[in-house]
């Protein structure tokens, strides 16, 4: 019984299996018939068509490069656009004798030694069958001259190409960046991102700034033409084509006029300025001085220009706001102050009597105040206003390094701001753990002392300092800084605004914020360290000055601004937000080797705020402005510079 059922099962299964095999057999038959039909279609029905394609020396697919998106400022002033120019290009593999050809060409149109240099450089970097630029920007006459003689030069082509141009030249070049010829590294990156086919016709790619970070938005989609070509490789007939889609246009949050005012205000001095709209994180001005002309890079920069830019002591190619690191100096104090208040230290009516120095218990070392003899009776508000070092030395020690750093980290210190251009550095907010890792040494109390006044290991970028000021103005809310405020889709014409992004929020006591704000407002009032900056402003400015040492001063030496090498002078720092009651702009200014923050950096900040808030154009020349101002000679702290053994390892804030 059992075995017969098994047998039945087995037979059933056999039957089932064979049925399923038969179905598959049918499936195979259908699939092969499908292929046979396709062969019939290709090889019999459309034979003539394909035959012709194959016979006529086949077809070629020609990429059509899309127009790169435009970059303009918030008011529509163009930072980067494209225009057509005639170029002369040579494909070395198609030319019998390169030297004679070039010398014959140079009898028709001018070929400068710089052109030749670039040609040879590019020739060595590319394959023989690629066409290489010999001349760009041919004028109409030159183009016509060559066109007439074209038959004499096989392998040489007159082309009309789209060129990137930066009409504002040096203005804002660190923001916009530049494009350059695609090199092997770019190719590798494109290949990894699976974008190579979209760059078939492109010679250029964003190399820095917005041009680099928004490459995918700006580039657009490459179109193509499927063309029939004859034996000489010339297009005979277009078989099909797809038009390219232009890259999207970018609208920056930058105000080019504001940018101009900021850059002009620096004059010949080196430094950086970043201005932010606190409520949104929009970057309003972003100056890195000196700047350079990005137009030099588009075609491949010539050797001499590159050398002079690259070897210049002023380092114009460095993006100072993002990559320049400086000790924050006294501009760090408002944040230390807030850290103290929020941790319940130094609440009013607490005050100290400042003797002009601070000493750690069991140490004879004196951490000096910038003002010999001290400031007398000082409470928190006044300590900010007059930038009292002694006050902050004590506060830092009482807070301890861990509480101090973990609080100010919320203001972006020690971390990248996340702005939308690449290669930002994160500065340095030192902790005992960091020091152990880096130097294999324990943390010293004295290092906490000087961290309280923004000296020691602490390093900030101008971007970070501006961002910290914006966060302070925004009452603890961090908005990610953005240079691009809107993107216009060139296909649909629709403009989409970049949404402000909140990345951090620390809840702060209004009362404490008020104390710091009042202290900072007093800075720009008579008696403050930047009284001249606030004079006749018409709006209230909350600010803080700072000075960062370049060269260490020995304990008993005196800093003499007049007799010191210009490049060894202190860096001048200034942060501010205004109007203090309802902040519309927050900024940070650094003037390298500028001396005092209030007198060197402050006036630049004032001009920027005046224009942004009141639409007022600057009247005074920046260079004279810094001479005429008189302010208390604040705060060149040299606490670190000491011959005494215990503190020797701290001797590096140059």
């Amino acid at each position, binding site marked *: 019984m059992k075995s017969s059922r098994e047998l039945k099962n087995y037979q059933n299964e056999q039957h089932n299996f064979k049925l399923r095999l038969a179905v598959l057999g049918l499936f195979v038959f259908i699939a*092969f018939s499908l292929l046979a039909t396709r062969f019939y279609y290709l090889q019999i029905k459309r034979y003539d068509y394909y035959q012709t394609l*194959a016979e006529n020396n086949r077809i070629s697919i020609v990429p059509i490069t899309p127009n790169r998106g435009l970059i303009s400022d918030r008011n529509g002033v163009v930072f980067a656009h494209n225009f057509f120019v005639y170029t002369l290009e040579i494909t070395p593999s198609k030319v019998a004798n390169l030297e004679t050809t070039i010398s014959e060409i140079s009898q028709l149109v001018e070929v400068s030694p710089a052109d030749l240099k670039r040609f040879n450089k590019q020739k060595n970097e590319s394959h023989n069958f690629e066409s290489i630029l010999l001349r760009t920007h041919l004028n109409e006459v030159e183009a016509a001259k060559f066109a007439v003689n074209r038959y004499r030069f096989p392998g040489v082509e007159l082309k009309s190409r789209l060129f990137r141009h930066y009409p504002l030249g040096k203005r804002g070049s660190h923001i916009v960046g530049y494009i350059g010829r695609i090199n092997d590294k770019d190719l590798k990156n494109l290949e990894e991102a699976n974008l190579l086919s979209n760059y078939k016709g492109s010679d250029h790619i964003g190399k820095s700034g917005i041009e680099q970070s928004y490459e995918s938005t700006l580039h657009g989609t490459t179109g193509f033409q499927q063309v029939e070509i004859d034996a000489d490789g010339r297009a005979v007939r277009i078989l099909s084509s797809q038009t390219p889609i232009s890259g999207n246009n970018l609208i920056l949050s930058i105000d080019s006029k504001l940018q101009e005012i900021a850059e002009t205000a620096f004059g010949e001095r080196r430094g950086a300025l970043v201005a932010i709209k606190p409520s949104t994180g929009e970057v309003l001005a972003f100056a890195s001085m000196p700047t350079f002309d990005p137009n030099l890079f588009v075609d491949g920069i010539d050797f001499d220009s590159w050398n002079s830019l690259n070897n210049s002591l002023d380092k114009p190619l460095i993006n100072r706001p993002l990559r320049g690191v400086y000790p924050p100096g006294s501009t760090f104090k408002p944040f230390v102050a807030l850290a103290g208040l929020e941790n319940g230290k130094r609440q009013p009516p607490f005050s100290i009597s400042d003797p002009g120095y601070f000493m750690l218990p069991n140490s004879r070392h004196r951490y000096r105040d910038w003002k010999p003899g001290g400031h007398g009776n000082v409470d928190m508000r006044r300590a900010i206003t007059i930038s009292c070092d002694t006050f902050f030395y004590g506060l830092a020690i009482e807070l301890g390094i861990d509480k101090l750093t973990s609080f100010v980290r919320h203001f972006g210190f020690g971390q990248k701001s996340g702005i939308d251009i690449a290669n930002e550095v994160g500065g340095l907010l030192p902790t005992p753990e960091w020091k152990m890792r880096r130097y294999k040494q324990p943390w010293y109390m004295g290092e906490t002392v000087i961290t309280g006044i923004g000296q020691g290991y602490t390093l900030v970028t101008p971007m970070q300092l501006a961002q910290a000021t914006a966060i302070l103005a925004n009452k603890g809310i961090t908005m990610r800084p953005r240079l691009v405020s809107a993107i216009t889709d060139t296909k649909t014409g629709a403009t989409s605004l970049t949404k402000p992004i909140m990345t951090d929020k620390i809840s702060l006591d209004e009362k404490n914020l008020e104390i710091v704000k009042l202290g900072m407002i007093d800075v720009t009032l008579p008696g403050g360290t930047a009284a001249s900056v606030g004079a006749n402003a018409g709006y209230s400015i909350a600010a803080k000055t700072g000075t960062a040492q370049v060269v260490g001063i020995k304990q008993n030496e005196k800093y003499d601004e007049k007799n010191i090498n210009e490049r060894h002078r202190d860096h001048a720092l200034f942060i501010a937000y205004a109007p203090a009651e309802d902040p519309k702009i927050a900024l940070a200014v650094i003037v390298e080797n500028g001396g005092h923050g209030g007198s060197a950096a402050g006036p630049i900040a004032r001009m920027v705020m005046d224009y942004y808030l009141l639409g007022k154009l600057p009247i005074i020349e920046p260079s004279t402005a810094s001479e005429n101002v008189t302010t208390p000679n604040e705060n060149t702290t040299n606490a670190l510079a000491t011959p005494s053994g215990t503190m020797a390892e701290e001797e590096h804030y140059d």
Partner: protein
Amino acid sequence: MISQLLQGLFKHIDSFLMGCLLFTILVGLFVLYSASGQSFERVSAQLVNIAIALSVMWLAANVQPQLLERIAVPVYLLGVLLLLAVEIFGHISHGAQRWLDLGFTKIQPSEIMRIAAPMMLAWFFSKHDASPRVIDFVIAAVLLLIPVILIMKQPDLGTSLLISSSGFFVIYLAGLSWRFLIGGTVLVGALMPIFWSMLHDYQRKRIEILIDPSQDPLGAGYHTIQATIALGSGGVTGKGWLNGSQAQLDFLPERTTDFIFAVFGEEFGMAGNLMLLVLFGLIIARGLVIAAQAQSTFTRLLAGSITLTFFTYAFVNMGMVSGILPVVGVPLPLISYGGTSMVTLLLGFGILMSIQTHKKLVASG
């Protein structure tokens, strides 16, 4: 004496199948000679591949199918382990991580899976002879998905596609209910638009290009465009051996490997293509017969799967070259240049022969 020896030597070789295979391989050598620009070097390298592959086939044919059944699980596990090893230590070539460097030689574990995965599934179902339940199919699907996902991650779309089809054939032949099959197809069809609407634009674009390469003639589409021109210009009888202009003038990419069929079609035309279809059809038919006559569940399922995987190879390759299927990296079986695919294919046919020729012995013994 000698004839006895020969008889012993070829006792387990299925002569009909062997005849078809050898003829196809011979045709392949001629096409390769033309496609490689008349390179004897290429052809002799392929001859070495063929010699190795035939030895492997002979060995497999002489092994009892029962042994295969016993080693199915360990081979599968080894395959999965090696795939994991590739994931961790693998060698990257052409942007994909497929090779495992053992120091003395490099192996491609996904190739092992081509046989190991259907063997594992056939073994699994042979343990649930009578009527597998739904849960068994679920377990089978998981067993299949493990190697498929690992290979897809390498990324090797072609191989993972072939392995999933080989596994699917086992599941189907094991008796997956028709309701499931039809229901599943309808469900997938119905879910497609919803899935589509969930994709990002760029993802859609990528799939669209996969389906219709002419949208991206600078990239993926270039192959297909050139291959269809080659095929179409072949006409009824072709341009003649060594005379394909598309093939000879460098217009066809990968013309000794994945796109060798374009060379064949250009030089031998519609007639050649149909002949190849018939050859493949005969091989498949013989495989199906072997499967139908097989005696155990394991051998039956394995034979069916091996045969239909061969079909998938052939269909996908010819389909992609002639422009009706997306371009995935699948070689033309028995013809494309390459050692690994030749070895795995003939290993499969060796197993088929073993199943066929050991059957009578089992029955009488």
